[in-house]
């Protein structure tokens, strides 16, 4: 099993199966705390967790902050708008300054793939990747795995289909790694301009050539967010066409297994990747994903910042 205490969490790459299950099991205990009236335990009292987000985010940052607070850690947040980074401070300088402040963990989101790795090589605090460029978003994959396991009781052999903008999606990449590690059966589909090369060889998934091929028999249909910028960069003609050709509506959702669920990492472009009826419909577990996100991030902070090893041994 990979040791988590004192480690960085830079990606799903490198997490073995037992470690993933350990995080999910730990999160189960923490989710109960979040459902109490007093949503707080003293586990990480005195520890300092900083969130630094170079890209806008509502739910991920909030989720990490709630997770830290529920474990009694002190939190601080840097939003890049108005911070030194906007004044031309490099990530290298930021790293050195953060280090001087004696932080225990830094949760970073950055538009450049590999930025958390860059930071991790240069600071003493533990680095948790909250999304880097188009590379990884490990806590999203962990909360997705948690949600799937909660719903189906197992991950091995689970038929998961990921559809949408695979080219630009860090959520897809982290999920593809995690799902391969736990032995799920994964299919993917993307419009041809949003399909990166080498997916099958890199992640052991099946690349479908039609949307229907991905939908048939899926137990989990994971949809991805479409960035509006894709229209201006010549990859797609219009949101309308995307919705018509690739959007998930009731008719398409009916092609997955009767007990199948619909997931999305949020935020959803209503009426584009998902029609409002399926988004708010009974198959949707999108809000469960959000709730589970806090518990999974509590587990990650807890296991990385200590306590976890003693509890296990």
């Amino acid at each position, binding site marked *: 099993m990979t040791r988590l205490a004192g480690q960085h969490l830079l990606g799903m790459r490198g997490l073995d199966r037992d470690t993933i299950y350990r995080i999910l099991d730990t999160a189960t205990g923490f989710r109960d705390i979040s459902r109490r009236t007093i949503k707080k335990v003293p586990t990480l009292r005195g520890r300092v967790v900083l969130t630094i987000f170079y890209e806008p985010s509502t739910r991920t940052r909030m989720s990490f902050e709630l997770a830290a607070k529920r474990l009694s850690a002190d939190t601080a947040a840097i939003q890049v708008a108005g911070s030194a980074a906007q004044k031309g401070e490099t990530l290298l300088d930021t790293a050195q300054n953060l280090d001087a402040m004696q932080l225990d963990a830094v949760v970073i989101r950055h538009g450049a*793939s590999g930025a958390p*790795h860059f930071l991790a090589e240069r600071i003493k605090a533990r680095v948790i990747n909250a999304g880097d460029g188009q590379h990884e978003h490990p806590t999203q994959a962990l909360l997705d795995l948690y949600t799937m396991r909660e719903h189906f009781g197992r991950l091995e052999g689970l038929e998961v289909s990921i559809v949408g903008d695979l080219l630009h999606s860090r959520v897809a990449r982290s999920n593809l790694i995690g799902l391969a590690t736990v032995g799920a059966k994964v299919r993917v589909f993307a419009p041809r301009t949003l399909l990166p090369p080498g997916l099958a060889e890199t992640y052991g998934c099946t690349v479908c050539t039609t949307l229907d091929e991905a939908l048939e028999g899926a137990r989990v249909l994971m949809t991805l967010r479409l960035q509006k910028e894709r229209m201006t960069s010549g990859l797609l003609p219009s949101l309308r066409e995307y919705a018509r050709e690739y959007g998930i509506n009731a008719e398409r959702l009916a092609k997955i297994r009767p007990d199948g669920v619909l997931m999305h990492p949020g935020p959803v472009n209503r009426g584009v990747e998902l029609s409002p009826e399926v988004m708010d419909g009974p198959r949707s577990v999108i809000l469960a994903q959000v709730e589970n996100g806090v518990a999974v991030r509590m587990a990650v902070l807890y296991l990385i910042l200590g306590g976890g090893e003693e509890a296990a041994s």
Partner: protein
Amino acid sequence: MTGVLIRNARLLDPVRHTDELGDVLVVGETIAALGPPATLSAADGVEIIDGGAGRLWVMPGLVDLHVHLREPGEEYKEDIESGSRAAAAGGFTTIVAMANTKPVADNAEVIRYVLERGRSVGLCRVLPVGAVTMGQAGETLAPFGELKAAGAVALSDDGHWLASSRLCRSALEYAQDFCLGLHMHAEDPGLSAGGLMHEGAVSTGLGLRGIPGAAEDVAVARDLILAEATGGRLHICHVSTARSVELIRAAKARGVRVTAEATPHHFTLTDEAVVGFDPNTKMRPPLRGVADRQAVIAGLADGTIDAIATDHAPHSTIEKDAPYEEAANGIIGLQTALPLALALWRAGGLSLLNMVERLTTGPLGVLGMTCPGLARGAPADLAILDPECTFDLTAAALMSKSKNSPFVGWQLKGAVETTLLGGRATYRRHESK
């Protein structure tokens, strides 16, 4: 008169295609005599280098067609002195300085400045390249006649492809009036836009936006068509894809006046080296796939690619110590070219004399110059090396002001012992420690 006698060394002559033991006597600035092993004697005061019955190798001084010396304008990265020092330590005696200085070498003053600085430093023959377009902006032609008269040996907007086919055609035509070749950075900017590394399974895994091989192939194909149509002299810089090797090979067979170069990093590394996000694996064109690397090696072996050129591109930590996406493109290469070329030979990529040709006669031929080889009366520009010497490359051993090399930490085999420029030692390994 000073002199050097290299006795009983392995002499590699790419001009006569000979590889044999022998002596070389240098007197003053030229090779005074050559002879069978241990037959030449020296007058008093002549330094004697013992070749150890072939332990040391002697070849003509190496020539690098593609070097960014950063002077004038970016002397904090490199200057003509530090760049020349790195070149001499790498066995080079002639280096071709690219035109993307600040200001750009689109006028006689910059060309003359580089030539004069090169001469006064005196560690290398520094041959300047003039820009193809004013400010390398791709809009109006630079004054080729003025550049040539000032001493430019070639024309290049390196770093920028001439996206306008009309202008490219004019440049290929007009350059013929001055017997200058166009050194082209072949990259269609529309296809490479936003790209950070070779597009393939590795870029997918790393989430780094890809530069498809087609970005180079499309540009090379157009350039070849225009070279064929105009009869102009075209040189393709840093060839990186299998398809462009194939296109150049076919064009050469048709008689198109095209030459090409490849870098040590492209024949040594693939896109797998980017795993881990080391910014010293970021350059244009990017490190390509396995099949591309093999095709570049095959192109070097069969002469489709005429020259090994480093694309020595110094950047300071300000540009390089950053997340991959933000880091500047380019790596240094003057001190690693020879050991990496030797490694390619050892791996069976090409024959030894072939390798020497790609570093000497090949690049000079691209410029329309001839290499006299190891011949009596030739200028004593010589590289003397110990091919068996292994060393761990450290940043401290790099003479460049910048240390942006992915090969720092590598164990390399083949060290330059002494470099002679016109009979004078510009580098001695035992003195550099």
